[in-house]
């Protein structure tokens, strides 16, 4: 972490960058927040640890409008989002300085709480990110790092940064699950079971828009679901079709653009596994139109703005045919 | 034979054969192709009109039913997908069904076999007597 701070100070000092976008220590050991650092002094509050899960690439849309370069720290998976945003002309590469940071998997306090741990006073992560010691009002607990890890880290995209100006720190292979296993599990269900599953999950939705607002692919200036222009604005949660429509259309709009960064599922206050929508589309795209990794580069045409003459017919795209 | 019964039989023939006799354009290619033409009293192309006119009794009594070799030449060559051979086969089945109980079972066949019989006739026989 100190290496990151030192390097940031250097780049600020020599005028390469005008500001630094990173994570700031929170008031608890587990709640760092995204912050801009404008000088060496502010950088004293900088933090980088297992809890720094936030994908900073989307913040660069606003940062690109500022005077001078912004130094940004990107984890390997964040770099895919960065590329995708570059492809869509949403950020300015010339106004960013990318330091790829090593990542050993990211954890969240929600997962720790899910283990039944309450009244957390502090969390300590050991040197090698193997174990977490949790001090609570009701006694101390030890948790395996992997058990507190976000879903996305169990199916990590890899240790490589697809874009960066320099890389600091080592990454770790955290994959211990099959990426499409959950999607396949659902695919194997009967229509009634599928419907029941998604109804149970989506009826929790409170339409807070956190998933959309955190999503680097959902970078629209004005979302269709906020726009009064097409009579498509939605705000009410009516435990009916509206949520499904919102989530299906959102998944559709980011299909071929979603890098599977997992932020949507991370931020959902109701713990809805929203990535299951996006991952279904990714699986379909891979199957129908060939392997495609959104954000792997900043040039390739996305699968939904492309075609071949012998693409699969919609009736053949569904399991039972139409 | 009552009118209703005839209608029903014509319907059955259409159903068994899967043939739409209205598709026939009366080109005669079936009759032109038929190896048994000369032995038939009702010619293959006429079968279509008999079914169209619900004249099933005449068909059922026709010796043509038993002269058809089931060689499928007419089925193969019919340009309109009418396939008169299927109509003949269906009419035959209708008659066989009405005979009731007079079926030939598969194990009865070997004893009746003559090694000199042509294969095609065997196939035809199967189709005639199987059910």
């Amino acid at each position: 972490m100190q290496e990151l701070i030192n390097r940031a100070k250097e780049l600020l000092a020599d005028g390469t960058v005008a500001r630094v976008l990173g994570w700031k220590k929170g008031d608890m050991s587990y709640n760092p927040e995204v912050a801009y650092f404008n000088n060496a002094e502010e950088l004293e509050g900088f933090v980088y640890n297992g809890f720094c899960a936030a994908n900073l690439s989307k913040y660069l849309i606003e940062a690109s409008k500022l005077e001078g370069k912004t130094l940004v720290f990107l984890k390997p998976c964040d770099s895919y989002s960065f590329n995708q945003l570059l492809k869509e002309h949403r950020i300015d590469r010339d106004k960013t300085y990318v330091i790829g940071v090593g990542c050993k998997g990211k954890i969240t306090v929600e997962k720790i709480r899910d283990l039944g741990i309450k009244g957390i006073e502090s969390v300590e992560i050991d040197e090698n990110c193997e174990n977490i010691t949790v001090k609570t009002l009701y006694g101390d607990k030890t948790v395996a790092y992997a058990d507190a890890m976000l879903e996305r880290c169990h199916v990590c995209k890899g240790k490589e940064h697809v874009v960066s100006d320099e890389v600091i720190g080592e990454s770790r292979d955290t994959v211990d699950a099959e990426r499409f296993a959950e999607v396949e599990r659902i695919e194997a269900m009967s229509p009634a079971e599928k419907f029941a599953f998604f109804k149970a999950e989506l009826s929790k939705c409170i339409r807070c828009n956190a998933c959309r607002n955190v999503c680097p692919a959902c970078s629209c200036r004005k979302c269709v679901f906020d726009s009064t222009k097409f009579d498509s604005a939605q705000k009410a949660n009516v435990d009916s079709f509206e949520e499904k429509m919102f989530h299906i259309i959102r998944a559709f709009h980011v299909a071929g653009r979603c890098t599977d960064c997992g932020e949507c599922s991370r931020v959902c206050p109701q713990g809805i596994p929203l990535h299951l929508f996006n991952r279904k589309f990714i699986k379909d795209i891979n199957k129908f139109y060939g392997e495609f990794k959104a954000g792997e580069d900043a040039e390739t045409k996305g699968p939904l703005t492309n075609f071949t003459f012998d693409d699969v017919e919609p009736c053949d795209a569904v399991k039972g045919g139409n | 034979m009552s009118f209703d019964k005839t209608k029903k039989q014509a319907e059955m023939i259409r159903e068994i054969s899967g043939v739409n006799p209205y598709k026939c354009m009366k080109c005669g290619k079936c009759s032109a192709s038929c190896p048994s033409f000369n032995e038939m009293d009702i010619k293959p192309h006429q079968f279509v009109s008999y079914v169209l006119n619900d004249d099933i009794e005449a068909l059922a009594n026709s010796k043509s039913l038993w002269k058809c070799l089931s060689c499928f030449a007419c089925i193969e060559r019919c340009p309109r997908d009418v396939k008169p051979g299927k109509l003949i086969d269906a009419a035959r089945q209708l008659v066989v069904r009405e005979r009731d109980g007079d079926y030939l079972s598969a194990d009865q066949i070997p004893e009746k076999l003559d090694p000199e019989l042509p294969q095609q006739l065997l196939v035809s026989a199967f189709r005639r007597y199987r059910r």
Partner: protein
Amino acid sequence: MQRIGVFVCHCGSNIAATVDVKKVVEIVKNEPGVVHAEDYQYMCSEAGQALIAKAIAEKNLTGIVVCSCSPRMHEATFRKAAERAGLNPYMVEIANIREHCSWIHKNIEEATEKAVILARAAIAKVNLNAPLKAGESRVTKRALVIGGGIAGIQTALDIADAGYEVDIVEKTPSIGGRMSQLDKTFPTLDCSACILTPKMVEAAAHEKITIYTYSEVEKVSGFVGDFTVDIRKKARSVDMDKCTGCGVCQEKCPSKKTPSEFNRGLGNRSAIYTPFAQAIPNVPVIDRDACLKFKTGKCGVCAKVCQAGAIDYEQKDEIVTEKYGAIVVATGFDTIKLDNYDEYAYNQSKDVITSLELERVMNAAGPTKGHLERLSDGKHPKEIVFIQCVGSRCSDDRGKPYCSKICCMYTAKHAMLIRDKYPDVNVTVFYIDVRTPGKNFDEFYRRAVEDYGVNYIKGQVGKVAPQPDGSLLVQGVDLLDNKQILKKADMVVLATAIEPDPSVRKIATMLTASIDTNNFLTESHAKLRPVESPTAGVFLSGVCQGPKDIPETVAQAGAAAVKAIGLLAKDKLLTNPCTAKPDELLCNGCSACANVCPYGAITYEVKLINDHGIREERRVAQVNNALCQGCGACTVTCPSGAMDLQGFSNRQIIAEVDAICR
């Protein structure tokens, strides 16, 4: 809120017999925005249009809905009527209650209910319509004719005579097409070459006509009035300017074993060849697949004997790019392959031939120098059987479901010519129907029977069996006699079905012209616009649109020319105003729309945007209205809905959906 008038047409009894039009009027009167509703016998009539004009003036209508026939039929009529009455033509919507309702439903209650719903959808849409203004685009005063047969030649001559430049692109080495392969033409029996050659010469000599032979259309872009076409001039290996057409190269060429395409493979040609004596241009091409020089590197005889030094082995394909205002497709036909018709023994016996092959046999320049002889042994035939409808009127996938139209007449012609020249030959024709509508056509057929003694038998042939003695056993049926016929013949001639030239598929795709299940190009309207493709600026000439004989082809060629001239005579065209329109405030500048635009109509610009008080430079999409054709691909790819399609906007379509589903 709009002030909408709804006009319900009876279309005589076409609509009124199944739709209770009075009831429709009563119900739609209560729809939001509707201030006027009435019905009339024929809305498209002068009187009907006057009713609309009157209502627009008296009720101050801002939008109208006409419940009538398909908009593809009369949308333009009603738009013009509205425009004359002072209303923007795009404030008109049509509810299709004829083709989509009265004509397909029998139950009056059901049809009326559906008509009301269709009307509601149109009303909901027009409530959201906005006046649109057509733009303008220029017209390139040059036409392209694809195909150099009689259809293409006639179209080109007619356009050129009207004073416009025309290019003909022909894929074979010479213009002339199928007609040049024919011996005589019905019903007058004049020599085909004698009437065709002057036309070919005229086209070649015409100062307004440029002919690209041995060339193919490679790429088409643009739109009506402004097409850009790449033409591939295949390497001829002979310099067109130097060659004098003396023919020595063809005589001396040592490779003479290639089947002649012109003679339908019945004779051979040399590797360097002109397809036939009267070829235009009279410049040979080298068939590089057959030429020894190209195959082995050794030979070069033609170069040695050519006094003009025209042989150029190094020649390369050349791409010519040209702009056109109109394109006429005249790609013609070929006969179908008979591989699936084993019963006629076409592939087993040389003496079973197609009618087009018989044309070559009968022709003095053909493989038998015009003598009627068996191709197997050169013997004079005594007994010839003609079989009609080979592959035509077939509903299975071996043949074609349509009638090829020309076979009855050319078979009568062949029978008559044979009987005339060789009275010792017996001619029998097996037919299903003899179809001879046309001026002097039935008389012609009757002459073949009555004056020339041709034996017409109603019935088909089931089988042609080659016999060990070289004869052919024809097994047919005489349906009128109810007899099977076994006939020994020396030759059998098959009236083979015709199909559009296979090249038409590729061309249709390039032109985005629609094609039917049989690969015939679709006309804009089967009756009223038979020579226009639904794709603006593309016209149809000859058999590419459907089977026809020569006089019909020439007539249609002229008609296509007139339509093309009508287009070329205009300096400007009004463009479709239903184009895509970006909302700059919503645009993310992501380029998704530009990625899917088939016309390259979308570009990006960095602009200063004032978004409710926030002023910033943004990359936003711009649409070129002259290029945009209004498909709407961009609108769906745009996640924020910034891109919308005028005339078919998101809100309009959603309003229609809502109206139908409620």
